[in-house]
């Protein structure tokens, strides 16, 4: 599903953010990216949806070389990749339902599809009751659920999560992880960057550890360490 071959990313030539990284992630896997701040986790994730291009090396997603992808095709790649972030990135002037619908509207999905899929996904994330609330009327955990709903409403093959629990208290974080686990069980590949030792140690999934831009460990059923 995802393959990196000898990927190096330099924002500036003196200190590369990712150095000669290679990894292969199968369909349906759940992978944690761990490592100190600045070790290159976010860079790793941004290379997977073509937010960044590697300085050298190859990136394959769903069998396609995405480095050479022409820019008009990038949106079609991204329709297969959901993204969630530490800061939720909801649109503050739209309701919960409108935030989720937005993701379908802007890729030209017809209204009857939107009307059917938005309530279904809000039900999945447990926010049916609050679909008409504004984001600032929700707790952090609820806001993250909305952003997961938005990322998943189009049923992407891959879900990229950059520290999704970074702003949440431990109990709320557990709820979010249950949701991501459920999504993973539908066959969606999940790649999640995190600093949360407790989550990594209890979930026992594959762990890729980065240190100063290098992959120093790639272990299935691993711990945070």
């Amino acid at each position, binding site marked *: 599903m995802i393959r990196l071959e000898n990927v190096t990313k330099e924002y500036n030539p003196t200190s590369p953010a990712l150095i000669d990284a290679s990894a292969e992630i199968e369909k349906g896997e759940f992978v944690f990216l761990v490592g100190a701040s600045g070790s290159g986790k976010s860079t790793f994730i941004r290379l997977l*949806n073509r937010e960044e291009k590697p300085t050298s090396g190859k990136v394959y997603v769903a069998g396609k070389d995405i480095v050479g992808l022409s820019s*008009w095709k990038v*949106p079609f790649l*991204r329709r297969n990749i959901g993204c969630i972030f530490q800061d939720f990135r909801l649109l503050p002037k739209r309701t919960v339902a409108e935030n989720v619908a937005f993701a379908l509207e*802007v*890729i030209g999905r017809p209204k009857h599809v939107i009307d059917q899929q938005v309530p279904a996904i809000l039900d999945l994330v447990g926010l049916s009751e609050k679909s008409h609330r504004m984001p600032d009327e929700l707790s952090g955990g609820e806001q993250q659920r909305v952003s997961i709903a938005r*990322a998943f409403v189009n049923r992407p093959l891959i879900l990229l999560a950059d520290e999704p629990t970074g702003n949440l208290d431990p109990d709320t974080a557990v709820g979010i992880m249950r949701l991501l686990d459920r999504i993973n069980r539908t066959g969606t590949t999940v790649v999640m960057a995190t600093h949360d030792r407790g989550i990594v140690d209890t979930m026992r999934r594959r762990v890729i550890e980065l240190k100063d831009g290098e992959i120093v460990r790639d272990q299935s059923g691993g711990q945070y360490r």
Partner: protein
Amino acid sequence: MIGKARFLLAETGQNIWRNIALTLASILVAAVSLTLFGTSQLVARGVENATQRWEGGIEFVVFMKADAEQSQLDAIEALLEESRGEEINDWDFVSKEETFNEFIEFFAGDEELLDTISVETMPPSFRIQPTDPDAGAVAALGGTFESKPGVRTVVFATEVIREIQTNAEKISQVMLWVGVLLLVASAIVILTTLSIAISSRRNEIEIMKLVGASNWFIRIPFMIEGLLQGVIGALLALPFLAFARQYVIEDFSESDRLRLLEGFRVTDSEFLFISLTAIAIGTAVATVGSILAVSRYLDV
């Protein structure tokens, strides 16, 4: 498809509404610049029409009475032929029918006026190109025709008309250049308006990119917004142009008691052409502004 269009239009509407003050400024600059451009063209056409009969070295016109007899016309013609190669370089006869056709073309649309005229009421005329363009010589030569039977009047292309012609041309040129400068300003204002619209929506744009909205889907609302500013500006310029045509140019020619500038008018088809040109230029300028804005400020 309909859902898409509705979404894009709603986005455009919201963009404009959030940015209404700047959008209005942008529309007004476009309107003023196109008004100046259009007026310069109206004046140029008016001058051209008014001075048409003075072109090619023609220095005076002998107008016959509408009821002049053929023998009287023949007499003048014989006189002119006699002097050809001497005082007169060349001359041209304009028949009743030709005058009538010119008249109809000039006053097209003015039904009231056209109802009162017919071929019969039109004066035939001789347009005369003297060998010596010196004002005194021309006046003396023209004067010899004034007393001939059947002649109504002799009209000279005096210094005055030449002066009016060059002045009007200068005014038209100045308006044209100011108009062009303002058109450049208009493109810049549209560019700025769009850059502000884009930066005020950067969160939406970021999400759109993230969830895979196509590049055109992201660009189109901003391009429509920019285009609308140019097109509405141009449409707003049209009533100003109609005003300029009616009250400035035509009052000018009516107050001209010497009737030197008779025919200082702009025909309906010329006005239509100038209006369409203004709309086309407004659209083109807005297109340039919009394309620059989305390619500079929208990183898609």
